[in-house]
């Protein structure tokens, strides 16, 4: 074989292998310490069956989070609103009335109505935030202590698609608990 080609090929191959390893290493380390970096579709929110924009409802329509996530200040789960609650504003008759103007909006809202069918079916939203099953997270005490939603979820009102902005791994939870005098006993979160 031509020795000059080999001489060039070895450093080139070596460099690209190194680059790939460095990239994978950087990816794994940053995913471990915080969230996966926003490359190759990681760090994006999941696609939802209906493109529900928090921007329109929170920033434009000015709705309070608790209007939809009703039990957030009293219970474990914040809960996702039932379809009936969407229809409060997006009623059958209003679908092409005053609320929805743009074409994409019409399409998405048509899905909302079509999805319902008879008998009424709930929408299968995809989870964005999900702790492992062995962790018992409760919203209520956090909200009652005056921690705002954006501390953990970021500026939802500016998100077209909800995505996870804070990693909320055990270190993250416990660091804040320590700083605020909240319990750090294992059985606070694991039982």
């Amino acid at each position, binding site marked *: 074989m031509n020795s000059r080609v080999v001489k060039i090929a070895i450093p080139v191959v070596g460099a690209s292998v190194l680059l790939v390893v460095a990239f994978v290493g950087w990816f794994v380390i940053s995913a471990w310490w915080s969230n996966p970096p926003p490359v190759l579709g990681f760090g994006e929110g999941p696609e939802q069956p209906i493109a529900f924009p928090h921007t329109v409802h929170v920033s434009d329509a000015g709705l309070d989070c608790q209007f939809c996530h009703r039990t957030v200040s009293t219970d*474990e789960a914040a809960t996702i609103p039932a379809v009936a609650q969407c229809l409060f504003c997006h009623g059958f008759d209003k679908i092409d009335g005053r609320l929805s103007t743009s074409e994409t909006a019409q399409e998405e809202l048509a899905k909302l109505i079509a999805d319902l069918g008879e008998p009424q079916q709930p929408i299968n939203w995809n989870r964005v935030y999900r702790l*492992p*099953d*062995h962790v*018992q997270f*409760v919203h*209520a*005490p956090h909200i*009652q*202590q005056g921690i705002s939603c954006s501390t953990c979820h970021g500026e939802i009102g500016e998100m077209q698609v909800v995505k996870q902005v804070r990693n909320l791994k055990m270190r993250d939870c416990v660091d804040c608990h320590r700083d605020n*005098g*909240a*319990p750090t*006993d*294992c*059985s*606070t979160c*694991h*039982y």
Partner: protein
Amino acid sequence: MATKTKSSAQRDTPKWEMVIDLDRCTGCQACVIACQAENNIPINEESAFHEHRAIQWIRIERYWEGEFPDVKARFLPLLCQQCDNAPCEPVCPVYATYHNEEGLNVQVYNRCVGTRYCGNNCPYHARLFNYWEPVWPEDLRNQLNPDVTVRTRGVMEKCTFCIQRIRRATRGGEAVEDGALQPACVQSCPTSALVFGNANDPDAKVTRLKNDERHFRVMEHLGTDPSVTYLKQVDVDG
């Protein structure tokens, strides 16, 4: 009261204890079933009992006293005694079991690696190992308690004094009224043989009963200092 919530440091730490009045126990097994449902315990097949691998966080020990026909059946509900000097705790190599400030012997399932040392060191045989992946019939899957972790194969588990109920009741630092907080076994007992409460509260029923003259604790001579007290009239006639 000026403020309703207190920070965790200001809270008066409770000490959860139980009293079981054996003179009231009829051995009906309601507590066993209630516990099974509350705590996502898989259904034990008959073979599991034969292999001594059945999982029951509370079980009824039955004893026969005397010879037929002068025979008496004695029952003793046995659960994790939440020992203050627990033999299971120091033997765990990964600190998956420890004592918390409320006097509970806590098992952190996700920390457990399944050495089973704790179970071997428990004189009450109150710790149970998941030899199999837990399974439920399809139509029972939706009745699982969302407040309780489903334990996977390979981890140790045991009675928690229904810590999920304790957490729910004490969240936000509210004081719990005596008798308002009940583990599933206590709640289901038809004769109210089981009493649960905060032993740091001098007026609590549990504090009064544990000093009843009939009191004893199981295998107290081992120095385990259990948090469960039993009451039994000593039967002079045998």
